[in-house]
């Protein structure tokens, strides 16, 4: 590599790792200084370019995507429900027995979801009320004040409906709160297995589940939620 090439390379990428460039750099103190000078310029440029994005930008991106997904699902649901209504009318004629296979299935799906995303119980995101409300606003709800320390916040999908998945610090361990504004239930149901216990209850036009470790007094959080949540 000749001197001209060396200088050109230094300006193109002062961090270049090519052997011929390194050799030329180590040839003289002058060359070394020349490269180090440009490396310093790069350091300063990186600092200057490293601007902070707005605090809640990530939440806003996820919210927009959730709304888009919501709209698509709604469109699909309308088409399916038109087709399904024909079948339902037919089915009603055959049996007047109420169909309630949905319930136990939903409880099972909630537990499976918690196990599938068990890592969320141990995250330390420390979300603010503002961040929670940014996400909730996409689901037509808001919290008036904090319900406790929120260590995870995200959206989720249960029974093909979008919802909000939160983990709140409890007395015994982390407590999962899942809000499903598009999935109504008629009444409160218990959820329980070897490790977890909780309940799913009607909330707004949909439902809300609160699930914690066995022995966790869930009533406290349940009360806080019912007091603080409102539906837009």
């Amino acid at each position, binding site marked *: 590599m000749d001197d001209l090439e060396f200088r050109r390379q230094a*300006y193109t*990428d002062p961090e270049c790792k090519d052997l011929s460039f390194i050799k030329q750099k180590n040839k003289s103190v002058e060359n070394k200084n020349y490269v180090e000078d440009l490396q310093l310029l790069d350091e300063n440029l*990186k*600092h*200057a370019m490293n601007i902070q*994005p*707005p605090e809640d930008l990530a939440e806003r991106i996820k919210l927009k995507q959730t709304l*888009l997904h919501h709209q698509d699902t709604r469109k699909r649901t309308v088409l399916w429900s038109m087709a399904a209504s024909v079948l339902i009318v037919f089915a009603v004629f055959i049996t007047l027995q109420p169909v309630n296979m949905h319930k136990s299935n939903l409880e099972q799906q909630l537990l499976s979801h918690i196990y599938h995303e068990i890592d969320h119980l141990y995250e330390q995101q420390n979300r603010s009320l503002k961040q929670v409300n940014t996400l909730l606003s996409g689901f037509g709800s808001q919290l008036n004040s904090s319900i406790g320390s929120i260590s995870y916040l995200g959206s989720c999908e249960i029974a093909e409906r979008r919802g909000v998945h939160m983990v709140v610090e409890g007395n015994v361990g982390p407590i999962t709160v899942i809000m499903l504004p598009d999935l109504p239930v008629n009444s409160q149901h218990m959820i329980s297995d070897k490790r977890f216990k909780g309940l799913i209850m009607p909330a707004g036009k949909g439902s809300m589940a609160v699930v914690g470790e066995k022995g966790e007094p869930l009533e406290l959080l349940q009360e806080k939620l019912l007091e603080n949540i409102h539906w837009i």
Partner: protein
Amino acid sequence: MVSKQKRFDVLVNALYADVYRYAFWVCKNQSMAEDLVQETYLRAWKNFENLKDEKVAKAWLFTIVRRENARKYERFQPDVINIDETNLSAEGVSPADHGEYSLMQKHILNLDLEFREPLILQLVGGFSAQEISNILQVKKNTVLTRLFRARNQLKKLVTDHSVSKKRQAGGLSDG
């Protein structure tokens, strides 16, 4: 099998800050950059099946930023903004250092887009000259020339500034 939603959330958390930085330095306006980032991620969600390999996710998102910027703002080019009015904040920069970086930010904003963009891709994106050439759809040699000229211009501006500062300091002490 990780769900589409999970993969998308990971992509947002890991890359939104760099995508925002790239968008800002390309369009030179904070609210336009925010819109660009949101639009970019919506497009990414709609075309998620096109992303075959997560390793190229950053280049893929940056390419969408470019396309969206061209589509939305190509005709609108803001005047060079006063850096003090933009409330820019650089991570890890103490208030005492801020003046130094805000001058550097002004220098970067004053570069023509054709020189500014490859430099941003190299220093913010961490891309090689070949990768930059793929993103910008220009020859690798063109990328090399533009990187050379971008640094050359910036070096000159920084040197000129420090020379005039020294002169000023000298003048004051003389008087």
